[in-house]
């Protein structure tokens, strides 16, 4: 795949020179085109005669994508390094180091685009930037210092890898953690700006003047929900981008050992991507709920207005990610000796995924001609209309998550044979089981109590309608009751039965019972639907956490039924990883458009109006064209950066994992 290392710097310089030349040509052409005198004190300026909004959109999106990679990879690398450190397996450490090599190369590009973004905003939207600066200028200095700290820590972390081994390894691990702390703090500051633009706090309602403190502006209602969503999305993004990097490495590898290395790296990338993807709908729901609470107008516009079609497109992309991720896992079972036992299950999982996605994709309302309405018998299809409602979609997404998790469990136990009795596993396993049980109990009990104590008046419901809160509360209590049952079963070496019980209960309760009950709630006590969705998703989350712990403990030290043959993967598996990468980059672009576009013609929602000529909401077609071009640009840029970074990583050309 890689050209000889000594040739690369020269080619890199060629590329750099060509890039600078191209930039100079563009700037010169722009300067020649801009024959008008500069508009002093203008509220908006054009970008060399072109749309300022488009220019900012492109630069901001590429910066955000690079930022997602630069923030997500250290989280993954740090975890991998800790795993390698604690288990003593060198392959984890090598992988963490290889990822950090990519990170170091991407960091400066991210910074360059960050600078470009600031300059375009100041140049093209001076009034808005002056306003934003008047609120947030105190955070700018902290941002700059944190950026410096992150850069310094990153290079220390990357170049200090060899020096900090042995007894200094703990210090190196601490540097990785510190790197993540700086990165998260940076993200939190930037999130404060954009989330405040959506939900401004500290603004006088009547005069629309900013009267609050900087902290009030920072701690706006969307700050934390957006941060949670972004951290998870960044990790998923980093996982799938790393997966694609590994896929290309695999396809171009000439040696078996290198193929095995990249196969394993691709598996880890896909695992990380899927693991972060699973809780993302929960985080998305939380963010959406808070957006709705901050502004019902914005919330309704998001799911039922101009952006509802963008969410259909989002469902398609998430569908590709889940189905693609599962497909890769299923192909991967072919390289695991003993996994053929579980192959028959896959067709059912596939069926569940496809049916659930069909439900998730079904729009509630589409424009129909009179002829189409007549043949349908009205605006809505008699059956499909129900699939367009939130109750059906909540059930469908819960089923998708549970199915994906089921695939992962099948993969995990592919080569596991006879289990070790739990009593032989030692005190640590017992303690972990007990602690996990407490968490698994606390989640449903906490929310069941909240539902039983919920005041119907707080939802504008009559006292008699409190009866609708009971069923989800009782189902949560039922799930809590299963925790001690499954604990006892595990202690008596009936772990798989315990897992099956928890799984079956969650699927039955969260998907089927509450899925159907959601329609009743929509009809009889609509405001309660949001609480019902939280109950569903807490049940699924509880099931995932508890079942993962059970799986780890139940199969700990189990006999090996067959070897994992790393490197024995067909090319189509690698192309699947590339597909996942392109899809998540496209998804991130789409979600960026939605988050920003929700403000419509407001720079700061309800406070500072966007009166520029570009304050219109683009169509889905326009949006996909722009985002598609950005995605190609970003992937091209990242390929170039990775290629330039390749000489360092090529030293060992990858090795087979143990």
């Amino acid at each position, binding site marked *: 795949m890689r050209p000889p290392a000594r040739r690369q710097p020269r080619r890199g310089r060629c590329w750099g020179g060509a890039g600078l030349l191209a930039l100079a040509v563009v700037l010169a052409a722009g300067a020649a085109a801009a024959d008008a005198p500069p508009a002093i004190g203008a509220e908006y300026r054009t970008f060399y005669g072109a749309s300022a909004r488009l220019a900012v959109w492109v630069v901001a999106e590429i910066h955000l994508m690079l930022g997602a990679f630069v923030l997500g990879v250290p989280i993954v690398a740090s975890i991998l390094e800790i795993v390698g450190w604690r288990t003593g397996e060198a392959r984890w450490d090598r992988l963490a180091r290889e990822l950090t090599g990519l990170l170091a190369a991407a960091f400066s590009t991210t910074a360059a685009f960050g600078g470009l973004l600031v300059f375009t905003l100041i140049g093209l939207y001076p009034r808005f930037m002056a306003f934003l600066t008047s609120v947030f200028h105190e955070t700018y200095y902290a941002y700059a210092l944190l950026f410096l700290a992150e850069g310094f820590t990153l290079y220390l972390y990357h170049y200090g890898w060899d020096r900090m081994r042995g007894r200094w390894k703990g210090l190196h691990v601490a540097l990785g953690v510190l790197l993540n702390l700086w990165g998260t703090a940076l993200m939190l500051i930037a999130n404060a700006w954009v989330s405040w633009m959506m939900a401004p706090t500290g603004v006088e309602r009547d005069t629309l003047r900013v009267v609050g403190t900087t902290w009030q502006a920072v701690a706006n209602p969307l700050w934390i929900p957006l941060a949670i969503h972004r951290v998870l999305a960044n990790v998923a993004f980093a996982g799938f981008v790393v997966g694609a990097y590994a896929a290309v490495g695999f396809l171009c590898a000439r040696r078996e050992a290198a193929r095995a290395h990249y196969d394993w790296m691709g598996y880890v990338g896909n695992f990380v991507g899927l693991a972060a993807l699973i809780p993302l709908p929960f985080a998305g729901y939380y963010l959406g709920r808070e957006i709705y609470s901050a502004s019902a107008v914005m919330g309704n516009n998001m799911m039922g*207005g101009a952006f509802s079609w963008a969410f259909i497109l989002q469902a398609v992309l998430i569908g590709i990610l889940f189905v693609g991720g599962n497909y890769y896992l299923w192909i991967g079972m072919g390289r695991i000796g003993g996994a053929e036992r579980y192959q028959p299950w896959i067709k059912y999982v596939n069926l569940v995924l496809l049916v659930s996605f069909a439900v998730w994709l079904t729009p509630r309302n589409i424009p129909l001609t009179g002829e189409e309405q007549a043949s349908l018998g009205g605006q809505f299809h008699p059956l499909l209309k129900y699939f367009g409602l939130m109750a059906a979609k909540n059930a469908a997404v819960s089923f998708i998550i549970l199915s994906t998790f089921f695939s992962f469990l099948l993969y995990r136990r592919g080569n596991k044979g006879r289990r070790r009795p739990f009593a032989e596993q030692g005190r640590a396993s017992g303690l972990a089981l007990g602690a996990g049980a407490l968490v698994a109990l606390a989640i449903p009990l906490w929310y069941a109590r909240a539902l039983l104590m919920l005041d119907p008046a707080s939802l504008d419901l009559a006292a008699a309608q409190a009866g609708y809160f009971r069923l989800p509360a009782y189902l949560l209590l039922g799930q809590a009751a299963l925790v001690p049952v499954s604990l006892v079963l595990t202690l008596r070496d009936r772990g798989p039965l315990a897992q099956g019980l928890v799984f079956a209960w969650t699927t039955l309760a969260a998907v089927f019972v509450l899925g159907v009950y959601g329609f009743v709630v929509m009809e*009889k006590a609509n405001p309660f639907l949001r609480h019902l969705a939280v109950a569903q998703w807490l049940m699924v989350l509880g099931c995932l956490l508890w079942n993962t712990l059970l799986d780890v403990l139940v199969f700990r030290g189990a006999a090996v039924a067959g070897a994992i043959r790393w490197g024995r993967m067909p090319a189509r598996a690698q192309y699947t990883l590339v597909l996942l990468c392109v899809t998540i980059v496209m998804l991130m672009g789409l979600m960026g458009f939605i988050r920003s576009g929700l403000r419509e013609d407001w720079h700061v929602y309800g406070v500072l109006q966007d009166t520029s000529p570009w304050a219109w909401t683009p169509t889905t077609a326009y949006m*996909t064209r722009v985002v598609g071009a950005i995605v190609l640009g970003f992937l091209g840029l990242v390929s170039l950066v990775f290629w330039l970074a390749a000489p360092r990583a090529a030293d060992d050309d990858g090795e087979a994992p143990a």
Partner: protein
Amino acid sequence: MRRHLLGVAALTVAVVLAIAALGELITRVSGEGGERPAAAVIAGVATPEAGEAIFWGKGKCSTCHAVGGRGGAVRGPDQGATGPLGQPIGLRAEARARERSRATGRPWTAADYLVESLLDPGAYVVAGYKNEMPNPLRPPIRLAPDEVRAAIVYLQSLGGTPDPAAIALPPGLAAQARAAAAEEWRAYVAGDAKKGERLFFDADGSAGCGRCHRVGARGGDVGPELTHIAGTRDARFIVESILEPSKVIASGYETVLIVTKDERHVTGIVRRESAAAVEVADSQGRIQRVATRDVRRRAPQAISTMPGNFGEILTVEEFHDVLAYVLALR
């Protein structure tokens, strides 16, 4: 190796193109327009049609309310015949007004109920729905009083009879509207006067003002001369004259309709008139001569000959360029 790299590149481009094609399909199927302005503009006329535009556009009412088979929102009551009480809102408002009379002990009309529903939505919440409707006068919706009135007329028309005269908005609202109107107008885009001059005199361009208006020695004579217009009129008046030319028609430039004996309709400004013939300039600046003996009927018109669609055919930048040029004519 090269084959695989090409394969990866081809797959990447194919995926992006497929998603872009899906976006194109969505736009075509969903009926999204080209550039959708975030705010619908109405001419300050309280008609059901104007209200309908508000309901399904700027007012964002349709994100929560369906109207029978139109729209799919379920968060708020359906305003069509499939809504609460099995009646459309135009009829249902009568029953609600009776409820409000009983609850408050004072007389309520259906129009009063609709006004209250829009301006104080929390005062009465339909059973089964949450008190979450925002005040449409406040940002980010920020309807003008005329737009509120139009929306109410539209709701009246759903099963009932539109009656703008019955709508009594709170007195403070009218004062608020007057205050807003009195604010000094200012352009929000810095126009380029040089470009504006080119647009002004480009006879084949979208503006083409010079076809009818003279500035100094250049331009036509159909409309008023504009050589010193910015010295005699303020910016707001000039903007209105461009976008709504019929609002105030300059004296001597009124439009007439001439119907000839052979059923020809000639509309324009009378430029010359003699005992034998009338010369009329049309909206494109062309002169048409009609013999007096051929005139069957002649009627003054309230609509200006100047095209009233500059708000649509000019881009925002072009409009501001032309405006910058005109505002420099002192």
